């Protein structure tokens, strides 16, 4: 039954929405404890993330990498694998995109930009293939491998950005990528860039792969029950490897977007754990591309609003972290949340 289900049912929608509301409610208790007014604090949070076209653009910019990492985690999860390595994959994708971006001076934009994006994607994909193959062929647990690969990625990129590809300035960063490799800014001065269009395309592509192709059907079948899938003539190992590769490519796009669209260069350890927040985004989005889209926007808004709240008010930004954590716990314990709802209805 679940194998056929491709759209968001109302039941799927209910738990996340209720979780968000409950988390905001719980967050207000903390605001009261620090002696501030929750309604006013949330108003700042909302106005600063959605209150103007520019704030909306900032929110979308913050959400863009989370769409990629969220989808990366969701995609692997559809094949029954937990990709905790999105963070490392995005770093590898980012550094490769940056290297391509600074390396070719006179390429036409039509070649340079796609080359940088595709090279980054390929690098992240290959990076994720390693744990994929280890899992499929040797049964080594992907959670261990993906997280260990993160450390390899951190230190490898540390080396590259402070060694051979260190730019001409003090900071541990590469030179600025050539304009021919940069993603265009959509709404300056915000750094919203055409990476968001890439994210929308990716969402569509992931949806089509998962629910409109034979490959997607096989991947989901393996995710639901590998034994049954194998019995039905589906190669479990082949699909696991493929799913990890695609997942890694998606995660690396987050790094590509940050480098080519936001910073214009690779900066050592630039990511605010985008890969790990992606896990939460996938969870809240119920591992569905459309759900991931909205979950990413919510998390992007919380980040945007939280940052502004820190600057404008006396409410500590940690409030936003508390809210995020509450959402994740409530969604993870969705039986509990659902139970609450059921009782409410029957009373």
């Amino acid at each position, binding site marked *: 039954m679940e194998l056929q289900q491709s759209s968001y049912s109302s039941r799927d929608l209910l738990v996340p929405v209720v979780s968000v509301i*409950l988390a905001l*409610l*719980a967050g*207000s*208790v903390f605001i*009261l404890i620090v*002696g*501030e*007014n*929750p*309604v*006013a*604090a949330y*108003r*700042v949070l909302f106005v600063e993330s959605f209150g103007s076209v520019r704030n909306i653009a*900032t929110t979308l910019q*913050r959400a863009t990498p989370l769409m990629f990492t969220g989808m990366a985690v969701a995609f692997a999860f559809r094949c029954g694998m937990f990709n905790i390595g999105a963070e490392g994959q995005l770093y590898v994708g980012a550094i490769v995109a940056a290297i391509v971006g600074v390396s070719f001076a006179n390429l036409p934009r039509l070649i340079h930009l796609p080359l940088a994006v595709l090279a980054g994607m390929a690098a992240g994909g290959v990076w994720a293939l390693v744990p994929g193959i280890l899992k499929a062929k040797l049964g080594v647990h992907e959670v261990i491998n993906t997280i260990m690969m993160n450390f390899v990625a951190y*230190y490898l990129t*540390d080396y590259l950005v*402070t*060694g051979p590809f260190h730019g001409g*300035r*003090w*900071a*541990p*960063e590469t030179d600025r990528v050539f304009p021919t490799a940069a993603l265009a800014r959509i709404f300056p*001065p915000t*750094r919203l860039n055409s990476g968001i269009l890439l994210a929308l395309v990716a969402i569509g592509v992931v949806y089509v792969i998962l629910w409109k192709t034979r490959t997607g059907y096989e991947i989901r079948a393996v995710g639901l029950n590998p034994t049954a899938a194998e019995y039905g003539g589906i190669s479990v190992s082949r699909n696991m490897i493929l799913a990890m590769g695609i997942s890694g490519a998606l995660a690396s796009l987050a790094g590509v977007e*940050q480098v080519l669209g*936001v*910073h*214009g*260069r690779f*900066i*050592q350890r*630039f*990511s*605010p754990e985008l890969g790990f927040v992606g896990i939460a985004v996938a969870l809240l989005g119920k591992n569905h591309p459309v759900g991931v889209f909205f979950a990413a926007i919510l998390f992007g808004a919380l*980040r945007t609003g939280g*940052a*502004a709240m*820190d*600057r*404008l*008010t*006396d*409410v500590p*930004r940690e409030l936003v972290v508390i809210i995020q954590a509450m959402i994740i716990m409530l969604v993870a314990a969705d039986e509990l949340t659902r139970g*609450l709802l059921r*009782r*409410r209805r029957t*009373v």
Partner: protein
Amino acid sequence: MRKAILLLTALVLVTAIAVPGFAGARPEAVVDELRVGVVFSIGGLGDESFNDAAYRGIQQAVEDFDIIFDFVEPDDVAEMEDHQRAFVEAGYDLVIAIGFLQQSGLESVAMDFPDARLAIVDSVIDMPNVASLIFKEHEGSFLVGALAAMMSESGTVGFVGGMEVPVIHNFQTGFEQGVAYADPDVDVLINYAGAFNDPGRGKELAISQNARGADIVYHAAGGTGMGVFEAAKEGGFYAIGVDSDQDHLAPGTILTSMLKRVDVAVYNIVADLVEGQFSGGVHAFGVADGGVGTTDFTHTANIIPQQVRDRLEQIKAQIIDGTINVASAHD
């Protein structure tokens, strides 16, 4: 449970209405005071180092001058530019960005607002509206290098760096030159931890350097240095601290600390603003203006012989008058 939620909602709403005078949006004061906005570095306040030093400087300025000061503690690089821009757009008279990670962001803000007065600590932005506050870490490190060479009995001293970044290389090169100047026969062991927040790794490296003969280890590694102190305390050798006065963290074990007076730099740029003397360009703080230097040896006065301290004063004077020219890693 349902009742609990309803109760909670009611409670929140009632209190929300009841709590008056919400300080949420700080009043946009229409005042004559100068307004200074500070965007801190990652790590935020309470780091016992960089950000705290900047905070001390601005607090001193708030006491001495008639200014209003607001700050924000960003938690990632991508956010920094938003904060810088927001302060400028809100009409702040000076926006100070702490740390080299803010360079890219501040560059584009500086380009968009040619009339804004901006400052960045630990980085150089070559624009007329940006004051680049940098430190001659090599000069201060030269001093502690000379001290280490004079104090070493084994003839070997160590350096533990945080990450392989240009700023830390500048500490290293100054230290090496100082050692070589005071005693060319003393060897320097160099190790990098690869992180500023890994005390375990710092301890390992210090122990290993001690095993290879180093009896004094200088760290320029932020939180990683805490492990260096621990190793020195346990292994009975000396350490040298960095950035802030860390001598009290292991009294008697830490010979001195190489002070990088971020507070002085921040205070001075605010003072410039107040006096109408703000100017862009590079403001380099060295031994001569007290921007870098050693501590007063409060805990090690009876460990470091008077003649060593006299010699150190002499070297300091020579750096100031230019007799000794310490080369920077940035040249």
